[in-house]
């Protein structure tokens, strides 16, 4: 009886500890966002009065309206949207094709291809900025959204390919074999069996690449000069002027910029739910 209650209480302690650890992590991760929200809602003149109080004496939405109506925010937003959606689309397309090939076929040069892809991930971005700048201006693409899309796509493909490969690896080969015996060509087996089962993987890749492109700053700064071509992260720096930083507006813009990522993840999250392949094998 005693041993039973000991294991029982041990289990309670363990589950409490787990909950506590998770709670700490969540607070830690969400705190910056809370602070963002708090400052965005604080009227400018009160910003430096209250010090680090948890909540301002009065709140206002004036920063939000100013940002949307009187700054280039909507332009940045639109540019970011174009760049991120295109990048996510192209990367997922290429990475799916490459990931499938890596997962299913043995071919000459496969190991070299994998090695080169890994290699590209090893250089610090700073080292690559100058050459990329030269290439982009050489092609006459300087100060265009196209240049960003190309560069982001190139940089995201390797990781996305490995990601997709692991999703394809998770789909039993027997399924394609069965489909081919049932009368499919390899391509039909891919489209009718493998593709539907890889949707979660594609959704994850889309989400990952979208977010990466959405928040990229370095290349956005280097390759874009004019305000009407700026994406959101570099646009944010416009709120820093010679005379000071407009914190309230900057934070409000930041909050608004979070919305698409959140919407995107809500939209794809039903595909992210695992277990789509369960039942394929005897298990």
């Amino acid at each position, binding site marked *: 009886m005693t041993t039973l209650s000991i294991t029982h209480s041990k289990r309670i302690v363990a589950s409490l500890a787990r909950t506590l650890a998770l709670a700490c992590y969540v607070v830690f991760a969400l705190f910056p966002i809370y602070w963002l929200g708090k400052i965005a809602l604080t009227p400018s003149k009160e910003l430096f009065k209250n010090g680090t109080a948890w909540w301002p004496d009065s709140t206002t939405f004036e920063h939000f309206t100013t940002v949307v109506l009187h700054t280039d925010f909507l332009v940045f937003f639109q540019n970011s949207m174009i760049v991120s959606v295109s990048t996510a689309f192209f990367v997922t397309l290429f990475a799916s094709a490459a990931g499938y090939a890596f997962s299913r076929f043995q071919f000459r040069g496969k190991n070299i291809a994998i090695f080169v892809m890994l290699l590209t991930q090893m250089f610090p971005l700073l080292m690559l900025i100058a050459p990329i700048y030269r290439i982009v201006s050489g092609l006459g693409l300087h100060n265009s959204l196209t240049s960003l899309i190309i560069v982001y796509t190139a940089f995201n493909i390797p990781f996305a390919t490995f990601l997709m490969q692991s999703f394809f690896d998770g789909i*039993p080969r*027997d*399924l394609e*074999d*069965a*489909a*081919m*015996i*049932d*009368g*499919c*060509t390899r391509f*039909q087996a891919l489209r*009718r*069996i493998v593709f*539907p*089962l890889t949707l979660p993987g594609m959704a994850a890749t889309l989400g990952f690449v979208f977010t990466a492109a959405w928040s990229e700053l370095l290349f956005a700064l280097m390759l874009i000069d004019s305000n009407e071509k700026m994406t959101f992260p570099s646009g944010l720096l416009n709120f820093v002027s010679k005379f000071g930083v407009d914190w309230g507006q900057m934070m409000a813009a930041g909050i608004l910029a979070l919305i698409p990522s959140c919407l995107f993840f809500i939209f794809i999250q039903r595909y992210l739910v695992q*277990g*789509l*392949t*369960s*039942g*394929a*094998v*005897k*298990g």
Partner: protein
Amino acid sequence: MAEISFSNLSKNYGSIEVLRNINLYIKDGEFIVLVGPSGCGKSTLLRLIAGLETITGGEISIGSQIVNDLEPRDRDLSMIFQSYALYPHMDVARNMGFSLEIRKENKDKRQSLVAKAAKTLGLEDYLDRLPKALSGGQRQRVAMGRAIVRKPRAFLFDEPLSNLDAALRIGMRFEIAKLHQKLGATMIYVTHDQVEAMTLADRIVVMNAGEIEQVGTPIDLYEQPQTLFVAKFIGSPSMNIVPASQSDDGIELPGGKTVKPGGWSKNLNPVQLGFRPEHLSLVEIGKADCTGKAIVTEHLGSDTFVYVDVKGWDPVIVRQRGNSNIQSGTELGISFDTSRLYMFAKDGKTIRGTDT
């Protein structure tokens, strides 16, 4: 319906030789069972027939057509996978009807064929479920259903029953036997299960390390194994194999007596002697060919297996009818049925006696 034949078939993966020198003719409507130790190439052979792997050398023909370069879908076969390989995103009906859907059968025909197969397999109540909501046995039946909705030229089975519990396995074995009778189709069946092999097969193909060791009816293989490997592989529990040395009067046994297997003559020089548990009898010590102590007895109800420790040999298994009551430690006398003794030469081949 079709006959299938292999001539000099071989398969390599890079430098690894997985199958070599496979020659076999399978009659139309024959039930062939492939057996052999793990890794000997049984699944590979099935996949070659199905067209899922390309062959390295030789020829496969189905009907009278050489299919070496034919795509799987043009070979018109059905295969039931070890893993079942059900499409997880399709319900049972669609899983079963998928091959018809791909072949553009019209919907009414598809539905009626699926309904017919579902009735045969008792799956009518599950047609709109996803595979993940089925038990292992039900999944297995869906996999069967997928194979029988159309009339393929042959069926390929890769250990289809290996993950089912004993009762289900016996039930499904019976179903497969009935199916074979009803359809009369050529079937090639891989299994590790002795009973499945012996009961289902018209002929059994014993494979070893990428080669065919022996082909024959179950009784052939049981009574006339051509090699030590087949002798040990067929039969459960397997044949007792002991070292043999010969003298002028026959093969010497522990304890000083000798035994003359049927067809014995002086210059056969066997190095091993084999005898099945069911061909030994326990007799009084005085009349025995050799003696030993009982170590363990296993009671199966219908039979009793007695493990006997004979000096100089690995434990010998003796099969006794019914429930024999032998205490471990008892001294037992063993007597051989000399017509059922097998002699093996150094190269692992069975030695045929002079008069057999």
